[in-house]
Every structure is written in C-alpha cells, then in structure tokens.
C-alpha cells in the first residue's frame, strides 16, 4: 500500500479541482465530493500506517531537475513520523468536513469552502510526505496560502480580511527564515535530501557556528507557522475564520507543521546545543506566556487559540529537551483533543450565536452532547489522569526533568497548572451557573456535527494508551525504531513523583477554577483584580500587537513614506529633468527651423564670427 501513498494528497487535490470547476453548480452537494475524496485519503493513510508498522521506511523519488552537479528530486517518503502525521491530518480533515456539513449550513459559498478545505488538506498532506526540503518548502507555502484563504473566508468582514493578511505576513516572516536556512543548508551540504543532510551533520562537515545558525533559522520558520513567541499574534486573530477551519488549521494541522518541521529536522537540532536551548526556551516561554493570556480572555475561540499556542510551546519545549517522542506524542494527542475542543466550541457558538463567554452559562442541561464532549476535551488538555493529555504531558515533563533543565521543568509545571485552570474556567463559564437564555433558544447541534466530535472524544480518551508508563511504550518504540541513537529513548524514565506532581497541579488548577467560576466560593476577582495593571496587561495580550504596531509597523511606514518621497521627488525629478532637457533641446531645435531667412543668416554669421574671433585670438592671420 505504501507505494501508492502518493495518492493520499492527490485525492483532496482532485476534490479541490472538481469543486473549483463545477462547484457553483453543485452547491451543497459539493460537500460530499470533498468528504468522499478525503475519506479515500484517510483510508489510504490508515492502510499505509498499518503497513508501516511492519514494513521499513518506503521512499520513492523521481528526478525533477538537474542543476549542475546537483539533482533535485521530487517524491514521497513514508517513515514513522510521516505515516502518523498523514493519519492525523486526513482524519481531522475528514471529521472537520463532516462537521462543516452542519456548521456551515446556509452558507452561500458552500462549495468554495470545501474547495479551500480540499486544497489545504492537499497542501498539508504533501507537506508531511515531502522527502526533501525543497518540496517541504513548496508545500509549506501552499499551506500558508490555504490558511490565508480559509481565514479570510468571510472576506466581507473587515476583521477577517485583516486577520488573513496578518496571518499571511506574520508566517511569511518565519518563512523567510526557513528559506534562508534551507539555502544555507544546501550551501553547506550540497543537498536537500534529509538523509544526506543528516549524514553530513553527523560526520561533522559543518562548523558548529553555521550549524547553530541554520538550525535557528529553520526554527524561525517553525516559530512563524506554529505561532510561537514572538510571531504568535496572528493565531488568535485567525479565529476570525469559520470555527471548523480553526479546528482543522489552527489546532490540529497547520500550526503543528512547525513542530513537525523541528521533529523532522531533529538530528540537525541535536547537533547544536545552542539551537536546542533556543527551541526549548522559546517553547517554554511561549507556553507560560500564552497560558497567562488565555486565563483572562473572554472570547471562547481566543481562549482556545492561546491554549493552542501554549500547547505548541509545550511541544517545542519537549523537542528542545531532547524529548522527541514526547513532542510527537503530544502533537498527536493535542491534535485530537484540541480539534474536539474547537468543534465543541463551534457547536456552542452554533447554538447560542455568541463567542463571549461572559454571556454564556448554564448550558450543561441544554447541550446534552456537546457539554460532556467539551468536558472530555477539557479534561484531556488539563492532563487529568487516564486521558490522553495526561500521558503526553507527563512524557514532556519527564523529558524536561531527565534533560536536567529544571528551570524549564518548573515552567512546564506552572503551565500545566495554568492550563488546567483556564480550561476549566472556560468550561465552567460556558456550562455551569444559571442559564441566561430561554430554553427554546438553545438548540443542540445536529447529529452530523456531533458525530465527528464523538469520534474525536473517543480518540482524546484512548489515544494516550499507545504510550504509557504502565502498558508499554508502543508509540515511542515504533517512532525511534532504527534511529535509537539519534532520536533518543522511546520513553523518558523519571522519578514517579513527577507524575504525581503533574496530576496534583492539574487537579489544583481544576479546583481553583471550580471554586472561582462554578461555585463562586472564591470571588472571581480573587487572584487578579479586573482593573489591576496585571489584568489589563494580560487582557491586552501583553500589548504585543500594540508593540508591533508602534515599532515595526510605524518604522516600515516611515521607511516607505521616505521611499515614496524619494521616488516621487528624487527619481521622478531626475526623470522629468531628463525628459525636460531633451524636450527643451527639441524645442530649441524646432525653433531653429523657423523658416526665417534672417534667423538662418544670423546663425550662420554668428558661427562665422565665432570662428573669426577664435582665429584672431589664437594667433591670427598675418601675424
């Protein structure tokens, strides 16, 4: 089955093309085309994954370009990470598309939406299958385009338009770093192939300095895509897109591309201690930074967006502390439970048509399916024992501890606590308390929306069991198979109290949120006062947008103003001087041709006089 894996991204592409061509005529039926093709893609991915369990890595490349002595190849590769990613992406995409059938009902540009989804799925699947960096970069940019289109789907909304542009530009900053990194890497190793690059890295051809530089540049690309500090500001704004899009792109797949990139290039990062440090510290800082913002936000999707940033920071932290398995494991579990949370949030929004959590409350009784599913997702992300998030988060904490970086470990623990706190704050504010609406106004979502949530809910519960300290570390062993020396241990062994600590901070967070928001035993303003400076700073996301606006945007505005004036006056003046002088010369020339005989005579005589004077002055005749 693996030799046919190239079909996996082709299916969504076909769906995209078909919808693009005949989508207008199909209208809502267009959705089924997208779903069927994505289903095919998912089935194939699943079969590929099954086969990969027993078969070795399959790689198939075709020669694409020969440039001098270098051959560029195009093809696909199925290794453990790729196979896993394929399944995650196609599964989430499939579920989101099914969910959208209900969520997007009544939307006029239904088929366009599915066309975009198909395009994005194609780009994302292509990205994870890429066997070399050029192809990866190619699909990396296509993913950006897909994200741009989907965020700006409600293009008639000013915020959506701005958010789409912002997302595109912010990720582009990272992309430039990635591109420079790729070029430098090619310069150093002469190849874009992962295998050859890693070989060159391990044989030590590249100096330590440039290795660190390359790794950090590639990490900059990952920072842009994964919304890490300081390029994170686009991700919360991207919530202007439809909620299923948020679930697909900004929770499960695209933002994970940055993590995937670091995981793919893991041997390169391992070779540079400084780069690993940079990844870990950026991840750790982003995790706690975003978690603190998420604790005060009032828009349900924004809370989830900051939570996503925080969790991505967690993954980066794991990778940066050599916890390859932990990072990938958390990537997988996070994809499931965060997609679940987004879809559930979408279901809530669908039911009551607001995103402001202060206007929600008491929905537990009304939304009989959404409520428990949201609870499952919340428990999973908080690291509640026996759910998927518990195992993956535990793995990350273990990795941080065994790596010996206790500062980052403490950061991670605090973030765990904050995660549990803000997720349950969200949960209680939506579902607990007294209802603020009439019963008939609140309707449970249709089954077509609940089904994908159910699937994700099940996965959010059980997906953790493939890698546990108790029942075996199946995932880790499989992931590092054949690469034990590079990727590290399948499972980080740590003291048992780490797990107990993780559980207790999670429970503490839940308890605090329960006290504050469900029981109101503690005043809601107990910890951070509504009008205190700290609260305002958090509410305004540390004023990051404002800082960017007043520094970078203004600076660029100034530069462009200067350049525009330069263009208008200096260059324009130069050009008009040239044209003016030529025009003037022409005018003088045409004036000479006046037809006035006397003028001609005058000019002729003038010439004669000048010659005579020159002659007389320079030693004339008879002298």
């Amino acid at each position: 089955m693996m030799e046919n894996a190239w079909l996996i991204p082709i299916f969504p592409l076909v769906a995209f093309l078909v919808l693009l061509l005949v989508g207008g005529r199909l209208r809502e039926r267009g959705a089924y085309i997208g779903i069927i093709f994505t289903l095919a893609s998912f089935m194939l991915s699943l079969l590929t994954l099954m086969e990969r369990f027993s078969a070795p890595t399959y790689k198939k490349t075709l020669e694409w370009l020969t440039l001098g002595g270098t051959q560029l190849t195009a093809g696909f590769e199925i290794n453990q990470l790729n196979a896993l990613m394929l399944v995650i992406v196609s599964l989430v995409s499939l579920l989101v598309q099914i969910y959208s059938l209900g969520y997007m009902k009544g939307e006029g540009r239904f088929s366009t939406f599915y066309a975009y989804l198909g395009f994005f799925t194609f780009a994302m699947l292509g990205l994870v299958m890429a066997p070399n960096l050029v192809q990866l970069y190619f699909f990396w940019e296509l993913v950006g385009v897909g994200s741009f289109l989907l965020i700006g789907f409600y293009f008639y909304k000013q915020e959506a338009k701005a958010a789409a542009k912002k997302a595109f530009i912010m990720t582009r900053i990272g992309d430039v770093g990635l591109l420079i990194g790729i070029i430098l890497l090619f310069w150093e190793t002469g190849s874009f192939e992962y295998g050859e690059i890693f070989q060159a890295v391990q044989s030590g051809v590249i100096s330590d300095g440039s290795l660190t530089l390359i790794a950090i540049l590639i990490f900059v690309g990952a920072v842009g895509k994964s919304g890490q500090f300081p390029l994170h500001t686009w991700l919360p704004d991207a919530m202007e897109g439809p909620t299923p899009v948020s679930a697909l792109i900004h929770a499960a797949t695209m933002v994970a591309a940055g993590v995937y990139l670091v995981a793919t290039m893991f041997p390169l990062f391992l070779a540079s201690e400084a780069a690993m440090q940079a990844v870990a510290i950026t991840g750790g800082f982003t995790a706690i930074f975003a978690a603190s913002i998420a604790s005060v936000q009032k828009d349900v999707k924004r809370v989830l967006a900051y939570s996503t940033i925080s969790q991505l920071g967690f993954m980066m932290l794991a990778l940066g502390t050599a916890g390859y398995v932990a990072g990938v494991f958390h990537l997988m579990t996070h994809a499931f439970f965060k997609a679940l949370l987004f879809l559930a949030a979408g279901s809530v929004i669908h039911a009551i048509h607001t995103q402001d959590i202060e206007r929600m409350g008491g929905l537990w009784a009304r939304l009989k399916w959404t409520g428990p599913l949201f609870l499952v997702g919340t428990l999973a992300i908080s690291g509640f024992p026996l759910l998927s998030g518990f195992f993956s988060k535990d793995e990350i904490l273990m990795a941080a501890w065994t790596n010996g970086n206790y500062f980052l470990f403490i950061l991670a623990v605090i973030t765990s606590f904050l995660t549990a706190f803000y997720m349950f704050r969200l949960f209680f504010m939506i579902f607990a308390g007294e209802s603020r609406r009439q019963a008939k106004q609140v309707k449970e979502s249709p089954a077509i929306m609940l089904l994908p949530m159910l699937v994700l809910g099940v996965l959010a519960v059980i997906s953790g069991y493939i890698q546990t300290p108790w029942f075996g570390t199946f995932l880790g062993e499989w992931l590092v198979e054949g690469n034990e020396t590079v990727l590290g241990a399948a499972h980080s062994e740590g003291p048992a109290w780490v797990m107990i600590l993780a559980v207790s901070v999670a429970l503490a967070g839940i308890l605090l949120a329960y006290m504050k928001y469900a029981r109101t035993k503690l005043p809601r303003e107990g910890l951070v006062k509504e009008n205190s400076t700290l609260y305002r700073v958090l509410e305004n996301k540390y004023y990051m947008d404002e800082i960017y606006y007043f520094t970078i945007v203004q600076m660029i505005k100034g530069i462009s103003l200067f350049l525009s004036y330069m263009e208008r006056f200096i260059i324009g003046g130069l050009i008009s001087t040239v044209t003016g002088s030529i025009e003037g010369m022409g005018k003088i020339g045409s004036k000479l041709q006046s037809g006035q005989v006397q003028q001609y005579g005058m000019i002729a005589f003038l010439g004669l006089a000048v010659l005579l004077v020159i002659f007389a002055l320079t030693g004339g005749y008879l002298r």
Partner: protein
Amino acid sequence: MTGVPLSAYLVLALVLFCIGLYGALTKRNAVIVLISIELMLNAANINLVAFSKLGVTPSITGQVFSLFTITIAAAEAAVGLAILMSLYRNRKTVNVDEMDIMKH
C-alpha cells in the same frame, strides 16, 4: 605722398559692412533688406578700389572689378525687386518674418 592711409579706407568699409549686415539681418521690410545688401556690396567695392591704389601691387584691375560688382549689384537689385513684386502679389506682404512658406 602723404595721404589717407589704406587702413582708414578699410575701417570705413568695415563699418559700412557691419551696418549693412545689421540692417540685412534685423529689418523686416524686404526692400530695406535689399538696400542693406547693396550697402554691404558697396563696402566691398571700397575695399577693391582702395587696394587698387594702395595695395601691394597697385593696378587698375581693382577698379575694373568694382565695375563688375556694381553691375552684379544692379542685376541683383532688379531680380530681387521682381521676386518681391511677385511675392507681394501672392501674399500681400513684404514682411520678411512672414516669408517662411519654404518651411512648410
């Protein structure tokens, strides 16, 4: 033989030539332009006659040639005026500024 030196005649001729030149190039009336040209020819004639007496090799030839020049000037005046007449008949003007049909 003391008398007027050659250079005095030549300077007089030069001054008359310059006046004639100025008139020929600035006056707008075609008749005056023609007369100015006659003046320039006269200045040249003075030179011829002066050199015939006070030149390196004094000879009557200078006077003979001045007669030729006068003849040419007379013929030129006649033809010039004839052209002027026909032009005036066609364009109702003797203004030199307006005589630029060859340009178009």
